[in-house]
């Protein structure tokens, strides 16, 4: 079965430090991968998707099919990055997104 694994429940870093939120998936085909973010008292929202190959709020994520990973990275964390981050996978068109358990990122000064 398709699965998304986020091994860290909580990641705490200092402002200005690099951040990497890990995401691994299990699927043998070519999935679509996403990162969603939920800031305090806000709705869960899309952060970025691998097909766009874009940088949003300084975050990037590269799909590594060999390692079946889609880690989220930012070179210099900011306090406003503190939030819950979910990695998600769609394994074929017309199916729903499968989410990981989420990682809480805490950035302190």
């Amino acid at each position, binding site marked *: 079965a398709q699965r998304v694994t*986020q091994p860290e429940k909580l990641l705490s870093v200092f402002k200005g430090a690099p951040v990497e939120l890990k995401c691994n998936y299990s699927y043998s085909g070519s999935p679509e991968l996403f990162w969603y973010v939920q800031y305090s008292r806000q709705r869960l929202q899309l952060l970025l998707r691998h097909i766009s190959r874009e940088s949003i709020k300084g975050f990037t994520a590269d799909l590594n099919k060999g390692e079946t990973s889609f880690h989220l990275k930012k070179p210099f964390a900011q306090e406003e990055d503190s939030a819950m981050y979910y990695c998600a996978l769609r394994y074929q068109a017309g199916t*729903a997104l499968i989410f990981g358990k989420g990682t809480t990122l805490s950035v302190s000064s």
Partner: protein
Amino acid sequence: SQTIHQWPATLVQPVGSPLSLECTVEGTSNPNLYWYRQAAGRGLQLLFYSVGIGQISSEVPQNLSASRPQDRQFILSSKKLLLSDSGFYLCAWSLPGANVLTFGAGSRLTVL
């Protein structure tokens, strides 16, 4: 523009009581609709999704059911709540064939 509404925002119910959570989408037609549950330590779990009126797919066996009586209305129900049904329920929509979900504000259910 499209908007998604969920209600009630919070609900406290006794074990064994019924449940009805509603979700409506405005500003679009024939959306795909989803119910997810966000529970501590379990992440975001897909419960049901629907690609059209009366078409419901269930992802996990459970004490809950879903219905889509109208194109833009998605209802999550239970006849008898269990303690384990407590959680934060999120409704979401997407355009048919699209891969981006837009989430509602959520409904927090506490079963006592």
